[in-house]
Structures are given as C-alpha cells and as structure tokens.
C-alpha cells in the first residue's frame, strides 16, 4: 500500500508542466532586458536582476513567470503579455500602467525577458 502511494506520487511528479505557456519564438531575452532598462520599467516595478531603480508604485515582478493573471484580469500568456507591455490600457481598462514606447517586436522581447523571472 505504502509503496503504491509512493509510486503514484513519484509518477505524478514526473508529469511535465504544460509546454508552450511561455514560448516566445524568435524573441531575444537579452534585447528584452536592455529594452526594460531603456524604457525604465523599473521606475515602477521591482525586477529581480535589475539593481536600480526598484520602484514600488506597481507590482513586484519577482516570479512573474509563475503568475496566473496579468494585472489580475488577463491570462498570463505570451501573446497577451506582449500586447500588455506595449499598450496596457487597451487590455485592462483603468490600469495605471500606460502604453510604453515599444514596437511589436520589442514588446515580444520584453515579454520573453519577463518569462525568465521564474
């Protein structure tokens, strides 16, 4: 009996996480990080790995990749995140986060970088 439970637990632990949730084909994480610094995202967000600034007006982005929803309203999916970092008010009306000076490709890079915050 006990061996059976252990076996089930072990096998359960082997199940891989759902794949592709954070897949951003063609996006460049390093470029995304540089864009985050250039646009000053950290003026409102604590971002692990960015030493300064560490703004506190917006949410802390530690473990952002594990977060279920963006701004509590939109599923945390790559396409949604890329759209959100570029023009947040279009997805979540009433959010304090404004549209940021990023083009579509840059927004994908930024999103790819944010998914490294595990």
């Amino acid at each position, binding site marked *: 009996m006990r061996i059976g439970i252990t076996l089930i637990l072990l096998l359960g632990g082997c199940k891989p996480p759902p794949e592709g949730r954070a897949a951003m084909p063609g996006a460049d994480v390093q470029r995304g990080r*540089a864009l985050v*610094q*250039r*646009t*000053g*995202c950290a*003026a*409102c967000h604590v971002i692990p790995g960015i030493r300064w*600034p*560490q*703004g*506190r*007006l*917006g949410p802390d982005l530690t473990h952002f990749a594990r977060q279920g929803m963006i701004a509590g309203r939109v599923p945390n999916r790559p396409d949604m995140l890329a759209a959100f970092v570029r023009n947040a008010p279009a997805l979540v009306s*009433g*959010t*304090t*986060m*404004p*549209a*940021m*000076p990023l083009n579509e490709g840059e927004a994908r890079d930024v999103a790819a970088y944010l998914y490294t915050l595990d």
Partner: protein
Amino acid sequence: MTWLPIFTRSTEQALSGWPPPVLDPAGPFASSITTLSWILFAMAGAVLALVLAALWVALAGSQRLRSRLGGTRVVWLAGIALPVVVLTALLIYGLSLTRTLRTPPQPSDIRVRVTGEMWWWRVAYLDRAGGVAMMDANEIHIPVGRTVTVELESSDIIHSFWVPRLSGKIDMVPGRRNVLRMQADAPGVYAGQCAEYCGGAHALMGFMVVAHDPDDYARFMAARARPAPQPGGQAARGAQLFQDSGCGACHRIAGTEANGLAGPDLSHVGSRRTLGAGILPNNRGTMIGWIGDPQSLKPGNRMPAYSTLPGQDLTAIAAYLETRR
C-alpha cells in the same frame, strides 16, 4: 579614450551618454584638460619607472652603480632640482590652462546660470545683461561651436559641476559664483554629474547637456519662448489636478498659477530627456512612477509620494506634464 572599458559602457545603456566617459573630449576646453591628464599620467609613469630602476640598482646593482646612487649629489639632483623644475613647469601650464576655462563671460558668449540643489540642477538662461531669460532644470541646451559661460552657484551645500566631455570640473560653493566655460564641437547629448559628495542622493544627481546645430538651436529656443498651448482632454484634467494637489507650491510652470521655486521648474519638462535629475528616461510610465513614489527611486529627495492619488489621476497629471514642452 573609448578603449578604457571602466570609463565607458555599451550603447544599450538606459540613458544615452550616461555614465559620462572621461578622457573622451568633445570640445576645446575638455581637450586641453584631457591633454593635461595624459601628460600627468605619462610623467607619473616616468617617475615610477625611475624609482623602480633606482630600487633595482639598490637591491641588485653592481658595487659601482650602487655607490653612484648613494651620496648627496643624487638627492640634490633627483630629489630636489628635478621635482622643482618639473612641478613649476606643470604649475604654470596648469594654471594658464584653467585660466582659459574660467575667463569671465565675453559679450559673444552664451550665458547660463546653474544652481546646485539637493539633488538637482536649477538652470537659468541669461540674456546679455545677465537677466533671466528662461528657467529650466536638469538639462542645458547649447549651440555647437559657441563658447558657453556657465555661472555656478549653490543654494545649500557644496556641489560640483562636471560635464567630462565638454569642460573641466569646478565646485559650486554657497555664497560664491564660480565660472566655467564649455563648448561642444558636434551635436549630441553629453551627460554631466555632480562630482562633490553632497548627501544621500549625490550619486543620483545627474544632468544632460544637449548640443544643437546653430539653426536647430535657434528654432528650439524660439519654440520654447512661445507660450505653451492650452491643454485639452485628459491633459486639461491633469492641469486641474496639478493645481488642486498643490504641485504648484514647489514647481513653476510658465503661464500658469504654479509658481513654486523649491523644486525643479516644469515649464518644459515634457521635452526633457530624463526625469529625477538625469536618472530615468522620460516617458509616461516613468513620470507616473516618479509622481506616485519618488522616494523609492531617489530616497531622501524632497518630493513626497503621491500614491494617495488614484492611478487615473496620476496618468492625467503625467499627460498634462507631457504637454509642457
């Protein structure tokens, strides 16, 4: 000297031109300082080599060499005569060089007064007579190829004005007016930094010098001299909020009731390259972040957090300030 990696960073840095590279002059005044620096480095290297050679002789040289190193003749020549000659020459050269940096304003010069504050820079463009023609903060616009005389003051403690690529470095001393001349040979953005420790946020006290082509400079200044357009829509609501929240007690915006002088002049804040005195890029997001919680970005600065305002209000104020160009 861009090959010195500790003095430069990649172009991917958040703010163009920051941190400012040293020994990479972009104008005549900085060039002479750079030349002086290299002469000093070279001479220091030569003296080090001489001392090491003498040390080697003393430790491992032959009897004949060691006897020549001893005695008072070497002391008189290498210990007294050489330093006197070399240091006197350097002193004369250095003083004549710094004199050209500190000549009082000439009629043809452009005059700017910069006042050091904890921890930002009050900027006033002066007319020929020395009257204030335009106020600004944390950014200085100059034309290429013209000498600009910067009159340096402080309103609290000692700061130091330093734009490494355009001129030398000189302290801003309370109760005194120091003068420094600078010039840029090419259009561009040249970063500056306070170079005298002045309290907690000293390292976050930067600014930008923007050099324009002469025509561009004339257009730029003429555009600024015109009254700013009335804000509409969200910006109009922001203007009302700016007034109702009491921002005008510390900040001035030309043409409005806001006439506070304790904080940076915001008449042209929308066209600035940076926020918080050279520390953040200027966009709506950073503006909201700064207004909402400046203490998290620049601890100890005199602006309180306005996180009591709803996000929509912060956004409206930021939208209004963007129109003040």
